């Protein structure tokens, strides 16, 4: 469903991604790990269509379409969902209203009938259980005054309602205590199926105790330098990133010679 080939990207002229390759098939869970500054969030933001990133080389195919040509809302309508590292507070816009507008925009794009208030409410009731979110948060402005954990749970709740084909979780584990982490992970696990794929972007291994990935990739200096199964995450946890960095620079030097 997703094929990233030799992706190069810059921010303010500084190269961040330097030839990234990644293939995600339907039904797979991929974890992208890496130290700070390796380009993890850049990758997540580029996939969602955020401005401020310049793709200088390479391509991103999504179901045989050029993803990079689509506007952020078209990507969402085509089934791409980004759970934000820092969910945005929107004063004055009710969370439920926001989500209903989003869902109906997507349904309209797909030629489906928009949900009325009653159907939407039923859907919300069903999904709300997955993330154990306080119903009170639905009546409040989007993310305004939410705690860090509430914001992340709200992201997963949005994801549950919008039911994406490709969900990208950008550091969703940061700032979560272990209970919140379990709830978030449980939400993702319930939603994940053979029909959709998940990319978990994370610095730490601990989220992967609860969301078990099919593949783990290590991102360093704008490239995926190592890929493996779920055991790779465990290895990283034990050895840290330094070992991988060393290996990667050795390979780079070797390649140059």
């Amino acid at each position, binding site marked *: 469903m997703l094929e990233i080939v030799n992706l190069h990207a810059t921010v303010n002229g500084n190269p961040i991604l330097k030839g990234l390759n990644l293939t995600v098939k339907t039904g797979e869970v991929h974890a992208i790990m890496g130290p700070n500054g390796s380009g993890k969030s850049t990758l997540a933001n580029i996939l969602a269509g955020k401005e401020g990133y310049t793709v200088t080389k390479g391509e991103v195919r999504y179901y045989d379409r050029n993803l990079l040509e689509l506007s952020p809302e078209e990507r969402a309508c085509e089934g791409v969902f980004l759970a934000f590292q820092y969910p945005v507070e929107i004063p004055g816009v009710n969370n439920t209203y926001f*989500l209903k507008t989003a869902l109906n925009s997507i349904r309209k794009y797909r030629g489906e009938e928009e949900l009325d208030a009653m159907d939407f409410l039923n859907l919300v009731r069903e999904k709300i259980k997955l993330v154990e979110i306080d119903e009170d948060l639905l009546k409040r402005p989007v993310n305004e005054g939410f705690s860090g954990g509430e914001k992340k749970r709200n992201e997963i709740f949005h994801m549950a309602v919008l039911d994406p084909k490709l969900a990208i979780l950008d550091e969703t584990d940061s700032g979560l205590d272990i209970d919140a982490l379990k709830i978030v992970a449980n939400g993702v696990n319930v939603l994940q199926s053979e029909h959709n794929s998940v990319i978990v972007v994370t610095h730490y291994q601990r989220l992967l105790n609860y969301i078990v990935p099919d593949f783990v990739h290590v991102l360093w200096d704008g490239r995926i330098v190592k890929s493996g199964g779920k055991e790779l995450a465990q290895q990283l946890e034990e050895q840290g990133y330094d070992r991988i960095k060393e290996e990667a620079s050795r390979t780079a030097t070797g390649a140059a010679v």
Partner: protein
Amino acid sequence: MNPSKKNWYLTQFDLFDKNGNGKKNATSAAIRDKARNIFTSGDFPTTDDESWKYTNLSPMLQYNFSPAFIPDPSPEKTDPVRSLFMDGTSRMVFINGWLNEQFTSIQGIPKKAVIKNISEAVRTNSDLTGEFLGKQSLAVQQPFPALNLSMLNDGAFIYLPDGSELSEPLHIIFYTVPGGRTLMNQPFVQIVASDNTRAGIIIHTVGLPGEVYLSNAVTEVIAGKSAKIEIANIQYENLQSFHIHSLFMKQSSDSQLSHHAFSFGSSLARNDVSATLDGENGECVLNGLFTIEGQQHSDHSTVIDHAKPNCRSREVYKGILNGKSTGAFNGKIIVRQDSQRTDAKQSNNNLLLTKEATMNTRPQLEIFADDVKCTHGATIGRIDDTALFYMRSRGIDPYRAQSILTMAFAMQLVEYLPWESLRLQLQERIAAQFNFRN
């Protein structure tokens, strides 16, 4: 003042007297004389005047405005005013300055209260009108209130005796039907709320689309001890018009006076608010929202005078500017030397929807006491890019997202209103302006 401009208005004063608009009542005549003296000895402000720095009146001064000497607009032109009517309220409707009896209906007024048009009140309640009418306007010696009172004819006079309460809000509409001569409509509202009174008053100033006119409005409010009064001014003048509103508020101890200003129409709108907390433990709330587009200009200039200790003021003004519109906000707070334990909070937030729109905002705090809490904050910004991207990334198109964000920005002020029917009316109006659909 420019001599020819002054002569024009002197001619209008003569014509006004000859046409007998004021019906030769002694109270009105005395007020008019005082006002004319102020008007003729003064000048219209220019941008050299500090408080008019951002509002240039020269486009307005090109015109020679005349009052409507007879209440003549045809029913088909006055009928649209019905769309503003709200259920359950007493209502006074003035068309081109004259009371329209057909649309006016006042019921359930408290004992000894007076809710009358001014030309009636000066005859039947000469003691009250003599004591209160126009006093705050005449004290400040400013040209626009003076021009208004120089041709004092009709308007609303509201007097609430001690302890009385209006169970439903009073709705006052000043409607301009332009046409024929270049009209000036000069709404005047006098509100005298005695001790321990409760009341809500909603004032619309509205004009039919078409020719240019001047709407030069004055509202005077006196709130007695422990009075709780809410007032809203909603301005829907036509887009060719000029609108000036001078609001005076004076409060006694323990009173709560809230004013809500909503400004949408006119090519040039200037709103002056002068609020005086003249008794201890008073609370003054000033809320305002303007939304403008095209070449419109809107200017709010507010002064809150903490003349006595232990008072609280809360001020929230917001502006939304589209097209090439220009706006200004000046918020002055004066804390007198003896006004200890003053608690004043002011905020002014402005949203620019285009690169061509311009806003000037200026908080002005003059604090002479030492034990006070005064905060102020002013912002001028665009639609928040991170919020916009967040919404787009959930499937909402950017136009829709912008209209939702703009609407949310505006609704804060609408939600402060205590009357649901007015909230809905304004919500609909603002939604239509920003292409917002639910």
